[in-house]
């Protein structure tokens, strides 16, 4: 176990370093992103421009700036933004984390529940119309662009039907759990539903498929021959085996979303999370914030994948031998 952790930890360092170098290189290879002129303000004269460049260390060579930025980010933890002068990057990130966690965990519970419930239903139902209907709805869920869906939800709940059916919907934004638990919940209902739709669609389809594949396996026939009921087979054996794929996907999805992949959902619903921070920093070409959010996101992705690899061994003992 210890060697596993040590190996994956050094792998994480490797991944984070590679990504940080790539991000740095990509940023400065982009024409027009030099922050000095934008910070100096419009129509700044050339001397002013030079002063600003110097204050940002932009006149030093690239590798020096990379090391300096990494040092400020990880060691001194006082890295400041290019766009909001003096604003420290790490507090911005840590303030945004609870909002994203709230959004993603809630949505994850919803889509896991929906995915498993409807996936099992579609795979096992005797009625002929259930499977095609659920499958089609799943496809619709996958094919809806998240930003468009969010705007439609807002159009209905905040605008058109706001004074009748959806009178109870609070204004857009995020309220902290510790500030007001009820408002926290109310503000997140529609963001949860919107984010969950896409993933529920995927998970329903995948789980249904996996169950049907597993149900045809030989050892399932053995169980039937032994006299086990269909229900027992379904729940004890088929579902557990089918979860392998779901677990893989969940690790990837959760890792990405917590790291900021839900940016479009956060933007549409006015939630100040890591995703929104990422989105704003990309629009502003604010490299320090971009770097911080990317490092945070990469950490989560690697961590979740490592966790999932451990889970494989728990779910399927045969993998343990690997």
């Amino acid at each position, binding site marked *: 176990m210890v060697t596993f952790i040590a190996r994956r930890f050094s792998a994480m360092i490797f991944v984070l370093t590679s990504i940080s170098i790539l991000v740095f290189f990509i940023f400065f290879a982009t024409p*027009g992103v030099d922050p000095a*002129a934008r910070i100096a303000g*419009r129509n*700044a004269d050339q001397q*002013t421009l030079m*002063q600003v460049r110097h204050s940002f260390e932009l006149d030093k060579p690239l590798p020096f700036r990379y090391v300096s930025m990494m040092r400020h980010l990880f060691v001194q933890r006082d890295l400041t933004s290019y766009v*909001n*002068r003096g604003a420290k990057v790490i507090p911005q990130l840590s303030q945004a984390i609870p909002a994203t966690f709230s959004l993603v965990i809630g949505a994850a519970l919803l889509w896991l529940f929906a995915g498993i419930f409807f996936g099992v239903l579609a795979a096992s139902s005797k009625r002929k119309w259930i499977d095609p209907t659920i499958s089609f709805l799943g496809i619709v869920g996958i094919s809806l662009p998240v930003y468009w869906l969010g705007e439609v939800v807002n159009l209905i709940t905040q605008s058109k039907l706001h004074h009748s059916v959806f009178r109870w919907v609070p204004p857009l934004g995020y309220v902290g759990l510790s500030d007001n638990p009820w408002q926290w919940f109310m503000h997140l209902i529609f963001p949860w539903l919107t984010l969950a739709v896409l993933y529920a669609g995927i998970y329903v389809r995948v789980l249904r498929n996996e169950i049907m594949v597993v149900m045809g396996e030989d050892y399932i026939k053995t169980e039937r021959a032994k006299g086990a009921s269909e229900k027992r087979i379904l729940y004890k054996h088929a579902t557990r085996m089918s979860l392998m794929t779901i677990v893989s996907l969940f690790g990837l999805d959760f890792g990405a979303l917590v790291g900021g992949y839900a940016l479009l959902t956060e933007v549409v619903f*006015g939630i100040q999370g890591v995703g929104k921070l990422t989105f704003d920093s990309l629009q502003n070409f604010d490299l320090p914030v971009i770097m911080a959010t990317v490092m945070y996101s990469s950490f989560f992705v690697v961590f979740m994948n490592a966790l999932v690899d451990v889970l494989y061994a728990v779910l399927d003992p045969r993998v343990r031998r690997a």
Partner: protein
Amino acid sequence: MGVAALIVSALVGTTSASAAASAALAPYDAKHAGGTVTLVAQAAAGTLDPKVNYTAQFWQLYQATYDGLLTFSYGSGATTFQVVPDLAEALPVMSNGGKTLTFKLRTGIKFSDGKPVTVADVKASFERIFKVSSPTAGSFYNGIVGADVCLKTPATCKLDKGVVVDAAKNTVVLNLVAADETILSKLAVPHAVINPASAPAKDAGTTLIPTTGAYMYKSYDPNKSLVMVRNPYYKEWSHAAQPQGYPDQILFKFGITPTAQVTAVENNQANWAYDPIPADRLNEIGTKFPSQVHVNPLTAMWYLPLNVNIAPFNNLKARQAVNYAIDRAAMVKIFGGTQLAGPVCSFLPPNFPGHVDYCGYTKGATPAKPATAWSAPDLALAKSLVKASGTAGQAVGIVVSDDDVNKQMGIYLQSVLNSIGYKATVKPISGNIQFTYIQNTKNKVQISVSQWYQDYPAASDFLDVLLGCASFTPNSDSSINMSGYCNKALDAKMAKAKALGLTDPVAANKMWGAIDQEVMADAPVAVVFTPKQLDFISSGTKNYVFSLQYKMFVSQLQVK
């Protein structure tokens, strides 16, 4: 009096009637005081430091928080273009041919941290302009004696000869290298406000600087909100310069998309939306909430800088072809319709000092024989000009911001340029870098879509700043003369007009008008339309007052 008054009257006197009649601000009505005014915007505007921030979004707030020796007046109509004394007791006494301005500082005014405003703070504030590398340090304030040294070594900036203060007599004497007919306006903008001498010697960013105005800053989180509360040490000293405000608190929330802002205002969850109203909500608010919509003229323009140094627009005929081909009415449609913008061909916008109603690039007119207004494009003439120029078939890239309105303008322009004989492509790039991107000659931008809003009401702020040789610096992100136009003869004329402005502003404005026509005959840009400001306020918000200089007065909104 003398020159100062002349300058002030020049700014006001020649403007024609604007939307609201020229009037002073109504007296304070304590009945309506109280409550919180909530403003919503998609994003914050960067640093809160008034000496560095150069955005309309925050300049709109500074009028209620910071004060300079002078400021632009509260009120409505042309009054808002007037420069009035603020922390100074009166407009300065000019002497030495306009090179020396003597101010007397008011007594009894305190910063929001309780400390009194002294002449030492005034001197320190002027030095601070250079210490923080203010964007206008080199363009507005380089005329102060000693500024050249400060520009070279800002960290140790000392303006002992330029800003001479006398604590006993409470006077401030400003010494200029040469007389400047726009110096009063330059002293009235936020970059020249008075901060405590203890303010940081670098861009304060999110650090709050004590204020002198009716409001002070309580907190600023660029990702969440900006909170302004009443300044406990404020007592109204001039109703025109810094009037008492109505709300107890002003909350500016960030992170709401423009369409969500409109919905929030409709639901009375916010009092005012900052960002431009999205195109598909305009009809909705104009039809369902007409009493909450305010449309006001702006002295601003949307225009297309044409790079005169690279193909194909280094050819005069090609540039004129573009001017003839553009259907300005179509672009007005994209912007939101005729209620929100008016087609224009002149460089100086309507109601601006020096503006003349003319259009050389409309059907049936030429720059030599202009019409009074634009009526229709002339595609046939444009096509023949392109052919005659020999640039037909060349590739042209149109660089625009990637927000919806700018992108749609770019797509329309692509269609037009294709129809007159070019091979056009649209190049949308992030709105946050487009402005500096199109200035840098390294990027070889041939044509782009840009906007220009006045800093202060003077023709030089348009013509000299945007088309003067001094504003063109190759290979720099700060080269606001995007066309790269450098006409020495025209520069000389502009210098003459500036000098004339010191003694005879009316004649000077006539000169600016002539310069406008002359430069547009050379077509370094294509001016498209002049936009109007649309403000959408909620049903619970009253007392909307509009300033031509800084737009809606935030502190005058009433929610009670």
